[in-house]
């Protein structure tokens, strides 16, 4: 059992509040993604869980055991670093076996576990090489294999895919997902890439300014962003926000109370033959499966994402309205009302 429970964790760096009272519960075997823009504190939170950083106050429990003040080696965690951190002076086999050797596991078992971890990551042909002879993708595999070999209670991954090129990242992402689903290791994964978060997570903790602003399943985070920040951060293109009451009315959205801002996803705007809200297309981007139209209503930017045909021309006026039930309403502080 290795559920993670974080209670009221704060971190201060020289007068700067990096984390302000974080509460987070990760269930056993759950895949939790910490998502947020850079500087939001997600890496700091992970490093506190790993024991590489000391919390200013608050409690960290792993598997019911209080971890505060314990060094990383006593937490039975494993971590995958953004720049892989594969030891350059050891062979790949020695790298993968390093954690087990430190635990004084007998040699025969170490070799067996190294083989197993290498096979999981498809790098068994690289075992005799050094990190310098490997590509970025292969080093990434070594780093993951090294983390898995120790059989950790908790696997921590700090932006593990962000140094890979786009195609490789996609491939590794689906491979990781399959692998970690089978292994059922409790995982915390830090990323700033919302697609990565959406595709991997059981639950996403969206962080902003040292706080967790929403912690929910990906579909829920996407469909019901808890704040306008989450709506604007998740989704590509991001959510549209409409303040003007007349525009809201033209879109066919009825506010539950006056003075609220409407948040509506670009793909939740439907084209009408006429009526609704007339929009003049400023920029049209053809994305293959869909086309993305950017327009302006008064001061507000409005994007809509629609099927690829019929093609919309720049300058053309289209009529749109909001799909019923898809609008979200935010108050002046940006919190979800309905």
């Amino acid at each position, binding site marked *: 059992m290795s559920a993670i429970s974080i209670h009221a964790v704060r971190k201060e760096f020289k007068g700067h509040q990096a984390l302000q009272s974080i509460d987070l519960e990760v269930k056993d075997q759950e895949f939790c993604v910490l998502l947020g823009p850079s500087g939001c504190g997600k890496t700091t939170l992970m490093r506190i869980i790993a024991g590489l950083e000391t919390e200013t106050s608050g409690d960290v429990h792993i598997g019911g055991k209080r971890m505060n003040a314990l060094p990383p080696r006593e937490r039975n965690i494993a971590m995958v670093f953004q720049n892989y951190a594969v*030891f350059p*002076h050891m062979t790949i086999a020695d790298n993968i076996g390093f954690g087990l050797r430190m*635990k004084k596991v007998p040699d025969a078992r170490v070799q067996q576990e190294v083989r197993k971890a290498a096979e999981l990551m498809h790098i068994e042909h690289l075992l005799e090489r050094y990190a310098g002879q490997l590509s970025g993708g292969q080093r990434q595999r070594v780093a993951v294999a090294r983390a898995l070999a120790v059989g950790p209670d908790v696997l*921590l991954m700090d932006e593990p895919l962000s140094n890979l090129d786009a195609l490789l990242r996609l491939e590794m992402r689906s491979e990781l997902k399959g692998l970690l689903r089978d292994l059922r290791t409790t995982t915390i994964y830090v990323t700033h890439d919302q697609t990565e978060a959406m595709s991997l997570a059981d639950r996403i903790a969206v962080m902003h300014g040292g706080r967790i602003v929403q912690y929910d399943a990906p579909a829920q985070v996407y469909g019901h962003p808890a704040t306008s920040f989450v709506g604007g951060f998740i989704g590509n293109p991001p959510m549209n926000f409409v303040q003007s009451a007349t525009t809201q009315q033209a879109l066919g959205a009825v506010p539950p109370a006056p003075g609220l801002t409407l948040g509506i996803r670009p793909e939740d705007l439907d084209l009408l033959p006429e009526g609704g809200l007339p929009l003049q297309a400023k920029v049209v981007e053809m994305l293959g499966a869909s086309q993305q139209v950017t327009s302006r209503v008064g001061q507000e930017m409005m994007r809509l994402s629609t099927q690829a045909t019929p093609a919309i021309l720049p300058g053309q006026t289209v009529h749109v309205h909001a799909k019923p039930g898809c609008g979200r309403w935010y108050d002046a502080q940006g919190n979800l009302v309905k």
Partner: protein
Amino acid sequence: MKQGSRALVAFAILLAVCWLVPIYLIGISALGPKEAATAWPKSLLPTTFSFDTMGFFLRYTGVWTAVWNSVVVAMLTMVFAVLLGAPAGYALARYDFRGQTVYRVLIVMTRAFPLAILALPLVTRFISVGLYDTQLGVALVHTALALPFSILVSSSLFMGIPRELEEAAWTLGCTRVQAFMKVVLPLALPGMAATMIFSFVISWNEVFSASVLTLNNRTLTAFLFASLEESPLHFRYAGGFFLILPSLIFIFVVRKYLFSMWGISNR
């Protein structure tokens, strides 16, 4: 770009010539017959090889004791410089502490005091604590000379080793000391070797403090310095050659080790 690299090559050749010609001249004079040292015009090619000069030098009374003293002092300096310099360098590289910049400046400042000023107080102090005319005493002064270099170079060495490697080792079950021994040290080794050799060479070549602080236990430089006045020219050449030799051999032997190891280049 191409022109730039050609200029670089020309500059490198010029530097190499400046350094190699004196060494070459010392070499042929030391390995030639006695008369060649004083002959004029000098022949630039070694015409006759003779071990007479070197032989005379090596049989000269006191030379071997001085060599032994030099080796011991240089070894001690090397060990002290690395034992004190590496931890200080590690602290500078890895920890954020108050007064770090001041500390860095102070390290360099130790080289700003001319030894000539320090010599007299040092001698009286060394006499009173019993370090005068000992190998250890000279080694301590040489360590002080070698330390700034040792600290600053090892600090930049440690900075060149990603912190994540160490952190990865911690998460994989290492204590701080184990992580240092198993991960940081092996990676810093080529650079550390360079630092150690440099400390050795600094001590081996140092004349002033070695002359002032010793009487009977002279190092080779101090011994030669003392006997230079009354010795013939070929003797001086032989002594000079003998002094250059260890540095040359050392650097030649470790140069591959210095340039690259495991594909990592050290600054």
